[in-house]
Structure formats: structure tokens, C-alpha cells
């Protein structure tokens, strides 16, 4: 806190050059309905205040974000002065040198090795607190170094408001980048340490990941006193990674590839194993049509990637309903492809098509396949059962997405197809967008086992008096697959609709009405959430909005990370935002 006070006082002293503030306050008071089986209602309220303060003086820049939250939408309360500083950093740049101290938000290459950022909408923060130095003596050469420590948090279940599984971690990184006529090439070496506290293993092994399966197997082989001794001790996972990236524009082709090879020890064990992440992107244009192909292969299945966040290689939609069933990526175990194409029909009407597919590297152990050719059970030399393995699906299997194909389903595949047309009229006072999405996901364990079709639309009309009317209408039908004891699938169809009507009064604000509805066939029940919002434009950089009603809870996804936003029933929300 003393450090923060010094920074602020020092900043005020220097703030003769430039200073800016940004304040945001959010208040909500209503009830929350547990979306689980019990349907219990509980009070739900938040009061979140963020004040960003920017100071700059010549080559020095200081950024602080102060937070008072009682309680925040996500995360822990910040009501004590010791917790006031959410983020701070001091930055100095002069000629070829750049130095930053504080919370480091950094990205090198496409993020296979390092991509650190904070996203408050999903309560994600993988930054380290430390120092970053970058030296660029020539236009064709950079050298950079990062060293710091962080505390990364995740939730043991998606509906929690607070991260309850916390990991201290450290990062040391040294890299260089060359910009040449033959393309840009980068080399990065990093050393990452993740610390696991003794009471975390039981929570980790109940999740649905390869790392959890590995811990479960390790627990089964050490059950009893040995395991009890093991889980009483903290452990450290140390990863060393070497990353190489190359990008070039060759005629009409933009090419980028990145390869990250690493070595790490498993949790509670010392022996190192190898992992790798690969990414390729090729973009081109043929006869006025843009094409993009991307490939990912993230294979470090017994490691929890913290300071990295590689490309998603699937389409992220801004549609309310589509984002609720968006694929949730596992950056340590996923392989997939993305094809995208854009073209303009006229200068004002454009089309987009995207196909993304992906799966895990290997199916979960095949517990139904434990017999040898004579009908006996297979055992290894230690007397453990040898389980069968699933056959790796082909590209065609992934494209077809037949849910009766057990080998395919075991790899937890997804296929996402999206097509969209959007455009303007000649007077630029009408905008429209019409899309269609087909999303198939087979992951029975996590509940993402469905075939979904969605149609998002948007229509905007501007009147001559500069007021405008906006309508979003979206519909979605989801066939949920349930795997029964008789090895047969049954379907239950859910139907969702979302509509928002908004009238914007020029230089005054907007009045909006929202309606969100669902029908669940499995319980033969319909539900509606409706609400009104009035927003006021107090100046060009000051807004106040008030919402009254109910909002459906659901997934909020960004950067491949999804968080469950609690439902909000019969309440009031207020947001105030100003830049000055």
C-alpha cells in the first residue's frame, strides 16, 4: 500500500504533462435462481467501482486501476485500503529502450508461449507482477525479457463467483525477434514454475481433463497411506519451453507458423515428459474472395498452461445465443482446423463463411474394451487392467459428426459452421445482418453433448432526425443427447429465443426492451426473462444506464474462456461510466 501511495503521489507531482481518469460504477440488486435441480432463489447483489488513473510525463507513464467492490460481479470483495489497487504499472521508454514494472500484460508471437492479460468479464487473469524490458536498437531487431510472479485462479465449478483454486506461478522469459526481407522470425526461451498447494489435488482430479485423469490414475496406484502422504505435500511443476515463430507475406499469401516445444514434470512427480504446441495460418485472396486456413495442435496434456493463451482456431460470435454454447477450449489438449472465407457481393454487402472443427488428442481409456482375443481380461505385469484405446477419427469423421461413432465421441469433438450476410443500403441509414450457425459438440462428461442450430439477425434503421431503431432477434434449437444405460442415445430438444428492441434518441440516450425465452422438452417447461433499460448520454464521454427486470444467466465466453453469469431476477442494475 505504501508503494501504491508513493506511486500516486509521485504521479500527481509529475502530472503536469498529462493526466486522465476513467471511472465505472456498477450496481445490481435482485435475486438469483440456482439453475441446478433445486431451483432455489437467493439474494444477488453487486456494487463494483473501478477508477483508472493514467499519468504521463515525458517518457514516463503510470497506470493504476483502483477498485472498491462490495461485492464484485466476479471475484473477491475489495473493501479494504490494502486491496484498493487492482492493477498498477510504471512504464519508461526512451529511444530504443522500454521498461515496465508492475502488472505485466504481454503477448509475443501468437501467444503459444506467452500471452498474459486480464479479462474482467470472465474473471480471468494470468498476468505476472514483475518487470519487462524490451530493447530495439535497430528496426530489424528486438530483444526482450520478462520476469515476474503471479497468482492464477480458476473455479472448481463454472457457476462460482469466486476463483477457489489458486496457483502461484513464476515466469522468466528471454526472447528475440528479427524483421527481415525474408520474413519475421522470433525465438523465445521461457522457464515457468507452477506451485500446487497440498489441498488442491482432490479438487483437480475430479475435473474432466487429461490432467485430472492422470491424477486419478496416480491416486489409484498409490491409494492408502502413500497417497495420504503425497497429498499433504505441496508440489512444483517446472516447464521449460523453446518457441520459434515465423511470419511472411509471399505475394498474395500471408503465412505464419509457430512451434513451441517444452519439457515439464507431472504434478507430484519429478520425471520430465515432453509436450508441444503448433500453429499454422495461411491467408490469401483469389478473385476477390478472401480465404483463411488455420491449424492448431496443442499437446501438453499433463500441464496446466497459465501464462500462455494460443489462438482459438474457431469462430467467436457476438450473438447472445450462439455465445452461450460456444466451444470451451482446452489449451493443453486440442487439435483442430478452421477455414474462413469472406467476399463482397457489392461494396456494401458482404458474406462470411466459417467452418471450425476440433477434438482431443486421444479418447479417454476405453473401459468397455478390456478383453483379449480369447475373452480374458488383459492385465499388465503389475496386475493392473489394460484398457483398450479408441481409434483416432479422420477429418471426414469430424466433418460428418456421427454421434453413434464411439471412437469419434470419445475424442470429444466439435464442429461449428457459420454463415453470415450483412450490409448497408445506399443511403447508409439501414444496416442488416442475417446469420446461420450449426454447432455440434459431443462431450457427455461435461454436458456439452448436443446438436444446435441458431439464426441470429440484426436490423438497424436511422431516421432523418438522427434517432435510430435497432432490433436483434435470435432463435436457437438444441437437441441434447443423453447416453442411456442401454447404450442408446435419447434426444431432448430445447428451444431458445432472444429479442432486443432499442430506440436511440440522438444526444439523449436509448430506451431498450429485452426478452429472453426458453422451452425445455425434457421437463416440458417454458421460462421468460424480460427487462427494460434506459441509458442516458450525459455527455460524449459520460453514460448512465438503469435496467429493471430479469436477465437469463448463462455462459459468457471470451478468448476461449467461458464463465457462467448468474441469472438475475426481478431486480435493478445501474451502470455509470465517465472518462475525464
Amino acid at each position, binding site marked *: 500500500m505504501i508503494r501504491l501511495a508513493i506511486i500516486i503521489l509521485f504521479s500527481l507531482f509529475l502530472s503536469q504533462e498529462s493526466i486522465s481518469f476513467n471511472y465505472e*460504477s456498477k450496481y445490481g440488486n435482485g435475486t438469483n435462481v440456482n439453475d441446478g435441480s433445486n431451483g432455489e432463489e437467493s439474494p444477488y447483489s453487486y456494487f463494483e467501482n473501478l477508477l483508472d488513473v493514467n499519468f504521463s510525463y515525458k517518457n514516463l507513464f503510470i497506470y493504476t486501476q483502483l477498485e472498491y467492490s462490495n461485492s464484485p460481479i466476479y471475484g473477491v470483495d475489495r473493501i479494504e485500503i490494502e486491496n484498493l489497487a487492482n492493477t498498477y504499472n510504471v512504464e519508461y521508454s526512451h529511444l530504443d529502450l522500454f521498461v515496465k514494472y508492475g502488472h505485466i500484460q504481454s503477448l509475443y*508471437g501468437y501467444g503459444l508461449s506467452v500471452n498474459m492479460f486480464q479479462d474482467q468479464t470472465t474473471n480471468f487473469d494470468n498476468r505476472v507482477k514483475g518487470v519487462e524490458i524490451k530493447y530495439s536498437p535497430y528496426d530489424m531487431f528486438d530483444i526482450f525479457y520478462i520476469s515476474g510472479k503471479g497468482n492464477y485462479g480458476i473455479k472448481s465449478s463454472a457457476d462460482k463467483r469466486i476463483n477457489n483454486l489458486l496457483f502461484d506461478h513464476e515466469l522468466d522469459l528471454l526472447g528475440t525477434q528479427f524483421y527481415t526481407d525474408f520474413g519475421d522470425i522470433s525465438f523465445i526461451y521461457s522457464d515457468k514454475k507452477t506451485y500446487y498447494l497440498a489441498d488442491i489435488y482432490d479438487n483437480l482430479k475430479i475435473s474432466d481433463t487429461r490432467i485430472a485423469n492422470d491424477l486419478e490414475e496416480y491416486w489409484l496406484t498409490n491409494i492408502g497411506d502413500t497417497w495420504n502422504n503425497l497429498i499433504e505435500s505441496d508440489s512444483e511443476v517446472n516447464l521449460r519451453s523453446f518457441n520459434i515463430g515465423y511470419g511472411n507475406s509471399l505475394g498474395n499469401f500471408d503465412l505464419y507458423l509457430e512451434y513451441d516445444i517444452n519439457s515439464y514434470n507431472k504434478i507430484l512427480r519429478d520425471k520430465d515428459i515432453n509436450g508441444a504446441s503448433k500453429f499454422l495460418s495461411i*491467408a490469401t485472396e483469389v478473385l476477390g474472395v478472401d480465404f483463411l486456413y488455420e491449424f492448431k495442435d496443442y499437446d501438453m496434456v499433463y500441464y496446466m498452461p497459465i501464462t500462455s493463451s494460443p489462438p482459438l482456431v474457431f469462430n467467436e460470435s*457476438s450473438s447472445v445465443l450462439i455465445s452461450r454454447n460456444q466451444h470451451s477450449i482446452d489449451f493443453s489438449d486440442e487439435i483442430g482446423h478452421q477455414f474462413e472465407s469472406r467476399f463482397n457481393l457489392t461494396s456494401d454487402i458482404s458474406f462470411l463463411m466459417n467452418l471450425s472443427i476440433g477434438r482431443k488428442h486421444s479418447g479417454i481409456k476405453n473401459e468397455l474394451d478390456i478383453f483379449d482375443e480369447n475373452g480374458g481380461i488383459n492385465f499388465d505385469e503389475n496386475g493392473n487392467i489394460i484398457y483398450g484405446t479408441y481409434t483416432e477419427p479422420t477429418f471426414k469423421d469430424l466433418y460428418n459428426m456421427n454421434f453413434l461413432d464411439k471412437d469419434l465421441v470419445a475424442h470429444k469433438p466439435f464442429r461449428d459452421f457459420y454463415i453470415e450476410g450483412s450490409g448497408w443500403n445506399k443511403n447508409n441509414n439501414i444496416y442488416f445482418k442475417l446469420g446461420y450457425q450449426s454447432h455440434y459438440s459431443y462431450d457427455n462428461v461435461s454436458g456439452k453433448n448436443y446438436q444446435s442450430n441458431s439464426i441470429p439477425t440484426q436490423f438497424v434503421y*436511422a431516421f432523418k432526425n*438522427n434517432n*435510430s431503431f435497432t432490433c436483434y432477434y435470435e432463435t436457437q434449437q438444441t437437441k441434447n443427447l443423453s447416453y442411456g444405460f442401454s447404450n442408446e442415445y435419447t434426444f431432448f430438444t430445447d428451444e431458445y429465443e432472444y429479442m432486443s428492441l432499442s430506440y436511440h434518441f440522438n444526444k439523449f440516450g436509448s430506451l431498450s426492451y429485452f426478452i429472453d425465452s426458453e422451452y425445455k422438452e425434457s421437463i416440458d417447461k417454458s421460462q421468460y426473462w424480460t427487462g427494460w433499460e434506459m441509458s442516458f448520454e450525459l455527455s460524449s*464521454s459520460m453514460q448512465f444506464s438503469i435496467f429493471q427486470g430479469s436477465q437469463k444467466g448463462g455462459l459468457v465466453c471470451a478468448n476461449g474462456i467461458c464463465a457462467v453469469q448468474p441469472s438475475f431476477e426481478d431486480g435493478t442494475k445501474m451502470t455509470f461510466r465517465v*472518462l475525464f
Partner: protein
Amino acid sequence: MIKLKNLFIVCFFITFLFSDDKIVKIIKEKIPSVNIKDINKKKIKLTDISKDYYVLFNFWNMACEPCKKEMKFLNIFHKRYNEYGFKVISINMDTPRSMSKVKKYVKKSGYAFDVLQDPRMDVFKKMGGSIMPFVVLADNEGNIVNKHIGFNLGDEKALEEEIKELIKFKVDTIKVKLNENND
């Protein structure tokens, strides 16, 4: 434990007080002097590219629908008022991993203005941004004169009036200087 609720209520009202345009104009906020790359990875100094120009900076990413709507009109303003010493500098905040899509989108949209990259949102934060669409207007001496958040169809008319005011101010300044020289 020190409760800070009251402090924040005070801050809230101070915010109203300070958000008055006259007070804001006392505090000079400058365009940050930073190096930034364009979408073809060419290094540029932000103060160099904006020097002597009345500039509108707009911050956006591919996921921001209102930003893309606003940019259609910014492109028109850039072409319409460029000869009067005005330019739009567009700053994209997608990460490099989306840059292939950004380059294709910019080309397809036929934007006449420069598009720069701010993948770590450094410039965005330095100019006080927190949400998109975010537009910053600066005079030809590098002083930030106004900021806009949000965009609805119809807002472009008021923005164009504001740009015309800036250009008029410049024309007046030139007239004064010419008169001084004649005297």
C-alpha cells in the same frame, strides 16, 4: 478495516464535477508519444503520424459491431476533410493471431485511413479507454480535445459537426496568422 464506501460516493460526485467540459479543458492531455506498428508491421511514432493534423483516433476490434458501423462513416469523414488538415487514425486492438482477418477486413472495406496495431491495448489505456467504440479527437498541436464512447446510427452527424468545428478553428487560426503577417 477502513471502509471506503463513503470515499467512493465522494469520488462519484467529484466525477460529475470534473466531467464539466470547462474544467476538463484546463487539464491538457496530450497524444502519447509512443511507437506503434501499422498492420504491415512498419514501426511508426504516433506523434509523428499525427503531427500538424487534426486527428480522430478510433479504437476497435473485429468483435466490436458498433465500431465497424462507425468506421464506415469515419472513412467518409477522412476522405471529405483530409484536404483541410484532418485525418482519421484507426487503431485495431485484435491480437496478432487475428491479424490475418484484420488485414483482409481492412482491405475489403476499402478504408482510406491508416490502420495501426495496439494488440496489448497500451495506447488505448494511455488515452483513457475502457470500452469500445472509443473515439479521441485531438488538435493539430497534439492536445486531446474530446473523447466519445459508444456509437448508435445517427451519432455520426454530431461527430461530423464536431470535426467541422475543429477545422473551422484551424481556418480561423490561419486567418489570424495571415492578418498578423500582413500587419
